[in-house]
């Protein structure tokens, strides 16, 4: 079972990864976007950790909902509302339970990812975060063992954005010139899923 602490660990691991990889995310965004994805994610996750510390939500759902709201209120850009919606809708789907099963989390994350797709109007292959998120949630199953598979899937999905031409977000303005670069949002999504797997490993 996954309790509020697990979700806190997940987001803490995510924040650490974002910190480590911020320059790389910005570099990727500089090739096909506006060179802010790293700082956006860093600002957002720093604020998430701070608000979680301050408000200390007690259920998985509350942790994710609060984190999502904080991202929306802190990040801006495309990734703020999208990641904010991802966490908020996932959190809402988890309800008020003090503990959730990996399978419940998988279902909730599928709801969250669907909300992202609806909000942004993107589908798989558009060269966005969905190209990492969708395969990741596909790979999630009933046990935390599946988290590692989700990580693999997300990473593969992020890598697979390289040959794609962007059809959503800023990168789409580049037309064919967007081909040959990895999507920054798909890359940060892979970080978040990797952090999930990391949290599960620690949890053992």
């Amino acid at each position, binding site marked *: 079972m996954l309790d509020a602490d697990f979700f806190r660990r997940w987001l803490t691991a995510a924040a650490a990864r974002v910190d480590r990889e911020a320059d790389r995310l910005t570099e990727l965004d*500089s090739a096909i*976007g506006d060179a802010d994805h*790293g700082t956006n994610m860093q600002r957002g996750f720093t604020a998430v950790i701070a608000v979680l510390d301050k408000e200390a939500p007690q259920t998985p759902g509350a942790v994710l909902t609060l984190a999502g709201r904080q991202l*929306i209120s802190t990040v801006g850009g495309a990734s703020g*509302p999208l990641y904010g919606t991802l966490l908020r809708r996932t959190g809402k789907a988890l309800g008020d339970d003090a503990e959730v099963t990996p399978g419940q989390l998988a279902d909730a994350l599928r709801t969250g990812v669907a909300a992202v797709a609806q909000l942004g109007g993107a589908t798989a292959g558009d060269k966005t975060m969905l190209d990492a998120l969708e395969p990741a949630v596909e790979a999630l199953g009933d046990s935390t063992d599946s988290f590692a598979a989700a990580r693999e899937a997300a990473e593969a999905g992020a890598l697979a954005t390289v040959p794609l031409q962007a059809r959503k*977000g800023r990168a789409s303005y580049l037309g064919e*010139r967007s081909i040959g670069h990895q999507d920054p949002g798909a890359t940060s999504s892979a970080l978040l899923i990797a952090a999930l797997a990391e949290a599960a490993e620690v949890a053992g």
Partner: protein
Amino acid sequence: MLINVPETVVADALRGMAAAHPELSVDVENRVIVRRDAPVAGKVGLVSGGGSGHEPLHGGFVGPGMLAAACPGEVFTSPVPDQMVRAAAAVDSGEGVLFIVKNYTGDVLNFDMAAELAEDEGVRLAKVLVNDDVAVTDSLYTAGRRGTGATLFVEKIAGAAAEEGAPLERVESIARQVNENSRSFGVALSASTTPAKGSPTFDLPSGELELGIGIHGEPGRERRPMMTSREIADFAVNAVLEDLPPTSPVIVLVNGMGATPLLELYGFNAEVQRVLSERRVPVVRTLVGNYVTSLDMAGCSVTLCQVDEELLRLWDAPVETAALRWGR
């Protein structure tokens, strides 16, 4: 860069704006710039915003006859919904609020979220998207046309209508009309440097230029060997006219991206006017300067806005902001 640390660039600028413009009420903490007399009874409030780095857009356009409030985000990052919610509350006199949103995924999503929240709080809201950039043509396969120079026309002309006391529906329809009547094309001679990245956002050798750029330091649609002012004017004006063959006179905005000297912009304007006269497009007004910028990018954009007598009258109406100011 003339900064302290990247993290405080926007807050520092807002403090500096507050000091320079006592006629504005600048909420540094919450990042909202509001005209001091807001809400103005009987008048629709215009709210715009977007990433910072495009100054004087939007904060420089707050004041009588133009915006009631502006919400600056981080550099090149759209603002968060909380800002627009706060701005809407500050400027709503009961006559409603118009959000003017440049068409970028981030701006659209954040303004949409804000609109939902503000409506929940009882504000009557309308929203207009600005999407004038003809460089992004295949909009089925993109996030759609970007909002660039036309933003100034929409904010000025709809702002004049609001100042005159036009109701929300009318202000909105004028804003929409201005956007539909406007088209832009931009060119970069150098990339811009964001404070956070600290180096140019893309690599542009000095003998080359980018055609069809936006205002966020992103590369354009195509790279070419350097062109003359004359050639660039031909290319840009024709791109605009091809997309929207003019049926009425135009207002011209020759806009600098930030680092192109005014001397060169005026010279470029001479070429723009030449093309327009060759193409027999009557020009009724011309504005030359750095208005919708991309930090320290060198380059320029041309925006044409077709106007009828009413839109021209509203363009000429008094405006009193930090960056645009005329009439009485």
